[in-house]
């Protein structure tokens, strides 16, 4: 039961600076949706509004609505803590908690929700690590520090940590930008596997990656530095990369700009 996300009239600010303006798009359940665009176009900002992580930064705020299966994340009575448990996130750089073991990293979110039973935790750890294609590599050293893994393994550990709390949606903010090509491939395989269970939104700089992993692609751009970013075009990935409607999209995907 993955979830549809409808974004309407979304505008995000950092203090007085308007980062993105008036974004409207619908993200299909169990699809991989990629956000692409040049630096500063606000694609990461939009991603962070989808689980209310945007407002964590001082002075940041959001206008408009984000509906998750019809419920507005920014509506009255919504608890950002619950929102983030439902919409998980993986960050640009692998960020396992350095003070925790691999095992503790995976159960970090579960412990917050008061799950203490060892048997249940063990089960979830294996399940999540298998889900993140990491189990076979780490099953013998679950009590070693998570920070001791390679970059790609760390990123998969972070994915395991995110899916351990059983979210509906998984947001990924350039998850491969700090990884080597082999690790990147591993993550991309994983994304393909995960989309059977989750709605996935991925921000990427890498257009090949977007075309490889995503079903739909949103292209963001901005007129010039200092202007807010805008959603230029949103369509099936195949259409965006072969026959985009907008000239700017074509320029970007063909490498003529950005």
């Amino acid at each position: 039961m993955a979830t549809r996300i409808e974004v309407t009239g979304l505008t995000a600010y950092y203090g007085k600076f308007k980062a993105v303006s008036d974004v409207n798009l619908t993200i299909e359940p169990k699809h991989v949706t990629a956000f692409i665009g040049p630096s500063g176009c606000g694609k990461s900002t939009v991603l962070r509004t989808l689980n209310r992580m945007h407002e964590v930064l001082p002075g940041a705020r959001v206008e408009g609505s984000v509906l998750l299966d019809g419920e507005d994340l920014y509506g009255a009575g919504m608890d950002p803590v619950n929102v983030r448990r439902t919409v998980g996130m993986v960050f640009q750089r692998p960020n396992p908690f350095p003070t925790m073991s691999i095992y503790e990293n995976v159960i970090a979110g579960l412990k917050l929700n008061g799950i203490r039973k060892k048997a249940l935790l063990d089960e979830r750890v294996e399940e999540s690590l298998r889900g993140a294609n990491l189990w076979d590599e780490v099953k013998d050293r679950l009590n070693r520090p998570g920070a001791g893994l390679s970059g790609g393994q760390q990123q998969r550990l972070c994915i395991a940590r995110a899916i351990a709390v059983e979210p509906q949606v998984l947001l990924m903010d350039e998850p491969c930008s700090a990884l080597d090509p082999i690790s990147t491939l591993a993550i991309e395989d994983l994304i393909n596997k995960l989309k059977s269970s989750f709605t996935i939104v991925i921000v990427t700089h890498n257009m090949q990656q977007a075309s490889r992993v995503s079903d739909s692609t949103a292209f963001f751009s901005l007129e010039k530095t200092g202007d807010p970013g805008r959603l230029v075009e949103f369509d099936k990935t195949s259409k965006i990369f072969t026959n985009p409607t907008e000239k700017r999209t074509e320029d970007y995907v063909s490498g003529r700009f950005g």
Partner: protein
Amino acid sequence: MSTATVPEPTVPGPATPGEDRLNLRGEILPRFVPPVVAAGSLVVALLIYLLTPMDSEIQIVLMAALIFVVAMTAISTRVEGRRRARDRFATTLVYGTFLLALIPLIAVLASVISKGAGRLDISFLTHSMNGIGARDSGGGIYHAIIGTVEQVLIASAIAVPFGLLVAIYLVEYGRGRISRTISFFVDVLTGLPSIIAGLFVLAFWILALGQGFSGFAGSLALVVLMIPTVVRSAEEMLKLVPNELREAGYALGVPKWRTILRVVVPTALPGIVTGVMLAVARVSGETAPVLLTVFGTNLINANPFSGEQSSLPLYIYSQAGQPQQFAIDRAWAAALVLIIIIMVLNLIARLFAGRNRLK
């Protein structure tokens, strides 16, 4: 709930009836609740104060704070659940400790300024205690300022180069056991009570070598206290210098020691200066080691290498121990001067920190 391993999603759990299928909602107390509870707690505390034999106003505040914490936690647990209640409890505690800590710390500064400013004038800064009797109101700190400045300068002249060399060794050359041992003993020195430094110089310089009390003896004690601070801050800053810079030096065929002196140290310099200034500020206020080694005098002695000197902290200590109000007033005024000096040193250190390219 779905799991990651199973390709097909498992049967959804019993969805909550109504629109909140995803369970995104949370009961959150309206913003006005905490202030209202706070006001209520204060009223209740006041009532308790009036009805029971409580005898101090501080207790009203304590009581109100206690009632607030209990009431807020209870309400929050009931409405928002345990996790949020705990979050609120932690927030209250953090704010509480902060406010609690502000009171004495601000009070210290306020006392020093209010009590010291009255006595502080030009004559206080330019006169010594020469010929001032126990019941006299005059006198000043000129001799103490001279002593402090000389002792601290000499101490810095010894401790800074020494500490810097140790830091360079630890960062650039140190490997293995020796370096770990040195690092450990730097930590030990950091935690060394200042009076031990004084006792050491007393035992070594004054009792064993038979040298008299002097400003220089005081400087030696301050050196012991300065070294760890200088080593630690220099070490931190040197570590921040990116390795690429060192490699760039080696790649150009520059020998290692010159790379260190011409590239690494200058890059870290502003940070090191900041650390040194903070170390200077710290030892300027040290009393105990100076007490044992400089001895103190009421006269001006500009020669740090012979005879007793005075110093500002020592002056404050000796004046504060006397029963006359004149002496107490002098102690406050001297404390004000000492604080001003240290604040200025800190400000200078900050200025360098602001220009610091590494931090």
